[in-house]
């Protein structure tokens, strides 16, 4: 059975719709949403509703730092840009939508899979997995063979052997990579709504438990419309324009 893994959707309706369409065509039977559904983009309500519908139908979703920030509301200590985005996003969401974000767990375990937004050692601390060091720390903090996390926007695959040797790999889109369960694996699918590796196409990954493989995908989408909506909503220009080249 194939599981589609999406992270860092960031209120980008065009990207999320394109990824969902692609994953359905590719045979996704289960959905996992790895947090940061809001923040940056112009369609938080649509994205939250979409995630809520998927969860109602059995999807797993975990909370991201942007989701929590919107639930809590902006604090006066924040820089003006994020404070504006959080206030604007809260104004777009109904109480029920905010309640849904508030109700999400920080992490979830299903069989030998761990789903968490940032890392396994301290999910609420939001530390990033920037490289092998942090990946090993995260893998050593869980008994699960497979960890799937977001937070980092660049797609990446880490592995840890029984003898403690770790490696990392930048995946080639569309190639199924065997991830046999005698190693531990940490999968970062990359951001669907805010790709930042120089490629504007939306990221997601598909795990196939029939042959224990993971396939990273890149899905081109109409980022001009997503950008224009952000500009029309007077969201920060820098955040809108970075969608054009995925920077």
């Amino acid at each position, binding site marked *: 059975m194939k599981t589609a893994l999406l992270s860092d959707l960031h209120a980008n309706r065009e990207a999320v719709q394109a990824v969902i369409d692609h994953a359905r065509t590719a045979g996704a039977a289960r959905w996992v949403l790895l947090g940061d559904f809001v923040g940056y983009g112009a369609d938080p309500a649509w994205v939250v509703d979409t995630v809520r519908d998927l969860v109602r139908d059995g999807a797993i979703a975990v909370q991201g730092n942007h989701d929590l920030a919107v639930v809590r509301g902006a604090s006066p200590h924040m820089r003006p840009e994020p404070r504006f985005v959080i206030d604007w996003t809260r104004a777009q969401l109904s109480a029920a939508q905010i309640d849904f974000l508030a109700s999400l767990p920080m992490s979830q375990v299903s*069989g*030998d899979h761990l789903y968490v937004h940032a890392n396994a050692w301290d999910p609420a601390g939001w530390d990033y997995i920037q490289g092998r060091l942090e990946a090993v720390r995260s893998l050593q903090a869980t008994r699960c*063979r497979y960890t799937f996390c977001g937070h980092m926007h660049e797609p990446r*695959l880490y*592995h840890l*052997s*029984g*003898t403690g*040797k*770790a*490696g*990392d*790999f930048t*995946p*080639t889109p569309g*190639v199924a*990579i*065997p991830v*046999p*369960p*005698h190693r531990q694996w940490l999968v970062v699918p990359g951001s669907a709504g805010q790709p930042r590796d120089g490629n504007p196409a939306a990221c997601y990954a598909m795990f196939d*438990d029939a*042959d*224990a493989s993971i396939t990273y995908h890149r899905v081109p989408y109409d980022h001009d419309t997503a950008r224009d909506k952000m500009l029309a909503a007077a969201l920060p220009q820098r955040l809108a324009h970075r969608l054009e080249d995925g920077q």
Partner: protein
Amino acid sequence: MDSRAPNPIPPAAPVAAAAAAHEQPAPTLQPGLVIDRFRLEEKLHVGGMAHLWRVSEVNHAGDSRLPLIMKVPRIKGGEDPATIVGFEVEQMIMPMLAGAHVPKFIAKGDFTRQPYIVMERIEGPSLRPRLEHAPLALDEVIEIGSRVATALHDLHRQHLVHLDIKPSNIMFRPDGTAVLVDFGLSRHDHLPDLLEEEFALPMGTGPYMSPEQVQFVRHDPRSDLFALGVMLYHFTTGERPFGSPDSVSGLRRRLWLDPVPPRALRADCPPWLQEVILKCLEVKPERRYQSAAQLALDLQNPTQVALTRRAERMQKSGTLRNFKRWFFALGAEPAPTHTKASEQLDRSPIILAAVDVDNAAPELLDKLRESVRRIVLAEPGARLACASVMKIARIGMDDLVDEDGRSRHVQQLVGLKHWARPISKGLNLDDGRLTFHVLEAPDVATAIVEFARRNQVDHIVMGARGASGLRRYLGSVSSQVVAESDCSVTVVRAAVPLPPADEPG
């Protein structure tokens, strides 16, 4: 492979019991035992790293399926992890490979139960026993080199660097196609390199390891050309160019010590073959052939090999030169790069210019030359093969060898060289990057397509016949080439003045 069970449970007999990699030795495998859907028939080979079993697929008994073997890693307690990781690597890589130059992959077994790979069985011995008969006849050396280079290029195109090319890993199909086996040290562009971080020592087989492999570089397809060069040297001379070192310092000597030139060991080794072998054995990858296809092209076209000082050498370099090379090799570790095998190939294509020197219009020949020049200019690693086809009758082949045939052949060669002269001068293509071929065949398009296929050409550039009566009667050669060839084809057309518009009625 079954990843659904977090705690693997040993399945019931007669299927093999569980053997987790680090827990207990593998169960006793014996004829008749069924592992998943495969029945062990006969143990064929006991190797240092793995056992090979002839197996049959239980649900397919009696039909015409491929003969199969099962490779089972030797897992003893507390052993060198190379066995395990190498087998893991092979399990990951084999399903990614296809084509005639690898054994067909059938199935693999999980490490949490019984690790194995089932693949097509290639009959016959490897090249290993031929080493005992070295030096071999030169024709055989050249044939081996050409077939292995062709196989290597096919694997490099599939994003793989083999990294353990040696006679025992080379087999042949009944039609002579070379098949490369054992991918336990290989690296695939699209897969995590599990070996990269695993070991503190260089990985490979001592005599064959390239200088960059000694320095932990694992992504360069030209490493395989070095190993093939070692093999060709051994088959030609009966000696190993760098001996069989068993220490890292021994391995590092190849960074500065050059081998005895083959001609000093074997008088009848032609200069061109020494040129080819020593070019493969260059310390710096950028001084070797840039692709296996370029090497195969030279092995199949000896008269076209550009001879350099390599061809002339009759003794090893002197002490001073060795000292210099040793000095510069100290600490000169290659800079880490993230180039991929396929990128190296993309940079080193073979371009075939198919030129109808006798019949094409001068405007078309000019236009074709300019198109070819631009394509070669854009690819500094490209090789250009210029070919024309000399039509011969389907029967009466003996006409070929008569004086008239020979002079026609020479005439075409002269015409081709003349056509290509502005390109070779303009782009300074004198270092063996330009070759000329007069193909003799009854059918022009078929000859071009087959030459391109045999030499793993990446791009054919050819002219279209003008809008003349000739095309109407003879059909278009270029459209047949476009339809039948495996590679990219660019068809060049010269501008034809528009016919005068019809008078208004």
